[in-house]
């Protein structure tokens, strides 16, 4: 379903931006309230729910065993899938995964994978024969804007509290999945000509391009993505990167607070 972007909305967002204001009264770098719950779904070996304003996402982690890739015989594998199902918004329609949902899954995947937070070698069962496959599924139930950060936050929280179901697969005792760090994503959207953090539904509808930044524990970059039509200057990026350092640390603290 193609959504109409009313010129009036764009105009209103531009006027607000000129006065350093936002449509829901937040300041430029302020996030909506974030609620995080972990280990909430029976059958998922790791799970988390994130609520950010009108956005609600669930993430589930499942495991199974598979033969390793021949070039990495002792290395487990990671897969991240995303579904933007019609439950999440009237704009989403049923059908095969859309480019938008594939981008979401891949950007979240890269942040986790490239941070090196998972020791893939620890997921080896029998070298060359059998390794653990970690499958993260991002399930958006309500798209009220910024589903990327909601999904990334829920994904790392679900992973950090996941249990590998070794007993069910008859390969030993269950054990906690070990994570060495907590990569966190922060996303910025151009609204009314300037970047803001954690855009809501109206800001995304009447905004332009977005930038996703995933930072590790040391503040290093692990994934970047510019999405949608639009361009930005290096100075603009430097400004949001500095902001991301602060926000990622806050979210990391929230994620750690849910761990037993």
């Amino acid at each position: 379903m193609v959504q109409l972007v009313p010129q009036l909305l764009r105009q209103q967002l531009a006027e607000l931006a000129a006065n350093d204001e936002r449509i829901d009264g937040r300041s430029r770098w302020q996030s909506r309230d974030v609620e995080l719950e972990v280990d909430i779904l029976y059958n998922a070996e790791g799970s988390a729910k994130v609520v950010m304003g009108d956005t609600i996402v669930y993430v589930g982690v499942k495991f199974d065993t598979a033969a390793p890739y021949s070039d990495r015989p002792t290395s487990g594998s990671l897969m991240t899938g995303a579904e933007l199902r019609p439950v999440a918004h009237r704009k989403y329609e049923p059908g095969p995964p859309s480019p938008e949902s594939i981008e979401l899954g891949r950007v979240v995947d890269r942040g986790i994978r490239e941070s090196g937070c998972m020791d893939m070698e620890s997921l080896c069962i029998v070298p060359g024969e059998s390794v653990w496959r970690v499958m993260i599924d991002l399930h958006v139930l309500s798209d009220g804007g910024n589903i990327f950060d909601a999904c990334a936050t829920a994904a790392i929280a679900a992973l950090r509290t996941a249990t590998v179901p070794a007993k069910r697969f008859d390969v030993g005792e269950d054990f906690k999945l070990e994570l060495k760090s907590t990569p966190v994503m922060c996303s910025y959207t151009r609204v009314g000509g300037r970047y803001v953090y954690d855009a809501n539904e109206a800001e995304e509808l009447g905004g332009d391009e977005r930038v996703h930044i995933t930072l590790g524990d040391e503040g290093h970059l692990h994934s970047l993505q510019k999405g949608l039509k639009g361009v930005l200057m290096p100075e603009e990026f430097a400004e949001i990167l500095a902001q991301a350092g602060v926000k990622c640390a806050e979210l990391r603290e929230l994620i750690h607070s849910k761990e037993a």
Partner: protein
Amino acid sequence: MMGGYGDIKLLNDDGTRLDGRAVDEMRPVEIKAGVLPVADGSAWVKHGLNVAVAAVYGPMEAHPRKIQRQDRAVIDVRYNMAPFSTSDRIRPGFNRRSREISKVTAEALESVVLVERYPRSKIRVEIEILAAEAGTRCVGITAASVALADAGIPMRDMIVGVASGKIEGVVVLDLDKAEDNYGQADLPMGILPNTGEMAFLQMDGDLSIEEYNLACEYNYKAASEIHVLMKQALLDSASRGDA
């Protein structure tokens, strides 16, 4: 096909079930309405360890045009299990089971929604199963009914999804996962609590007429209990002002 008699022990010596429930006792049920801010109506139902969320969008223009009906709305239901909702991850997307459940759920809802009020339009009902522990189609119907009511769509009645079955030759209310896997019969029903009509009916396994009658009686008893929770969820949502 249900598992055979005596495959596995499902009843304790004192006649209670493995999880301690009496034969005519339901798993705990929790219901909330108005849980998804973006949808026109929504509901969250936890039934035992099952978790279902339903969203309603519409009435909206029905497209493509060929699905339009001149005299009524069409109800477009999607029942979907999240990949992490089952013990083994399931591949995303429709399969034959979810298509059948979507079809019979839509037909059940069409019998209660006043579809003739909205000619040529479509009402979308999205049922997402987040955790599955036997009986998800019933939980989905209950959630969908509350979501429709939460969306303010006129209905003759809501539908309560309930099931009874048979384990070790004994009729029991509300099968859990082990009972569903190893029991001998399953009788899911969609009951209109105000009129007593059935809008949804399936069964598989082996039941005598007497056993059917008892299972049916259990289902009606459970439906009136769940109906109270459905109404309360809608009242709570309305009084929060976000319905």
